[in-house]
Structure formats: structure tokens, C-alpha cells
């Protein structure tokens, strides 16, 4: 059981380039999330999705886009990369029930923009 799989694990981008971080889960979870983690800042929610075809902005969505065409996949697209987007990105998924919402996280994708 793979859980939440993120690719790539590491990537270096030049300013202005674009790229997509891939996220896939095999637990049939309806909810999926993208967070970024900066040193000393905790995790900030970028985008989230409550099901295929439905996405919404989180706390820090500027400079990112997402899509959710299937239950399993939730890619995060960075357009015109900027140094401020240097961070570790985590994808998570959950199956919300009875008020509980335990997130399962991927291993993270470390992105550096130079």
C-alpha cells in the first residue's frame, strides 16, 4: 500500500520556469491538500480539494494552480517560478468521517528556485 506518493523528491528551477509537482494517493480518499513548509514557519495550506473536479484556495495560493480530474491525482503547478517559492512541498489526503480528519502525508518535494 503506497499511501501518498509525491514526485519529484528534489528539483532545482531557474527563475521564470514552470513545473508540476505530482501527487497520487491509492487510499480512495476524497480530500486532498497541498502544503508548503518553510523553516520555522510550520505548514501553510496552498490549495485543497474535496473531490474530483472541486478545488479551492488555501492560505497561500498565489503563484500556484491545481487540478483534480481524478480521485487519485492532485498535481500542483508552479507558473513563473520565483525564489520565494523555494520550499518543501507536502501533499496530503484524508477521508473525513465523524468529525475526524486524519491527514496522510507524502514524503515531500524539495524545490529550489535560483
Amino acid at each position, binding site marked *: 500500500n503506497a499511501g501518498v506518493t509525491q514526485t519529484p523528491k528534489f528539483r532545482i528551477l531557474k527563475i521564470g520556469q514552470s513545473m508540476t509537482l505530482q501527487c497520487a494517493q491509492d487510499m480512495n480518499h476524497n480530500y486532498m491538500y497541498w502544503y508548503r513548509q518553510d523553516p520555522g514557519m*510550520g505548514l501553510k495550506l496552498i490549495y485543497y480539494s474535496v473531490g474530483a473536479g472541486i478545488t479551492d484556495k488555501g492560505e497561500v495560493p498565489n503563484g500556484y494552480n491545481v487540478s483534480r480530474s481524478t480521485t487519485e491525482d492532485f498535481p500542483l503547478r508552479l507558473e513563473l517560478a520565483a525564489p520565494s517559492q523555494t520550499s518543501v512541498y507536502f501533499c496530503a489526503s484524508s477521508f473525513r468521517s465523524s*468529525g475526524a480528519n486524519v491527514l496522510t502525508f507524502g514524503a*515531500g518535494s524539495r524545490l529550489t528556485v535560483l
Partner: protein
Amino acid sequence: SQELEQSPQSLIVQEGKNLTINCTSSKTLYGLYWYKQKYGEGLIFLMMLQKGGEEKSHEKITAKLDEKKQQSSLHITASQPSHAGIYLCGVVSSAGDYKLSFGAGTTVTVRA
């Protein structure tokens, strides 16, 4: 807006000693989730608290949610090297909401 503070930011403990981490919110908590992160890895779920006064334990880790539901503590008894890592609290601070906001984390180092 949500004000979430974890304390201490970091701590070093001698192997075998106890330690406590706190997570304090400026708002009432409707769900409190403790996670652990090892360097370069994702977050691993430890336990969830929802009711004021609730206490849960798993192996040598105990978490409590205070009666007023604005603070949680995580206590590790007889720490071991395997307890080293970053501990983060994730909270739900609006009734009916489900999205988690996370604290900045507490880095725990266990010295042999």
C-alpha cells in the same frame, strides 16, 4: 485569524528523561492533531483529540487537550533516540471546518 504557538521551539533531552511540548491557540479548538516529522520525511500521525479534558496515550507518548480546549500538551516518558524529530500540532479552529492549520513545530533532540 488563527494564532497557534508551539513551545518550546526546540529542546535537548537526555535519553531516559521526560519531556513536554505545548500547543496553544488563541481560539477554541475543535480538533487537535499531533504529528511527528523526521528530517527529510513526511509527517506521521500520532494522535487526535477533540473533547475538552481528553487524554490519549500511545506507547510512551501522552497527549492532553485542556478543559477550555485552547491548549494541548504532548508528554514523552523516558525518552529514547527514536523520539527525536519535529513534533507539530495541527488544529481545526472553526466548528464544521476540517482544514488543519499547523504550528511551527518543536524540534526534539535526544542525547545518549
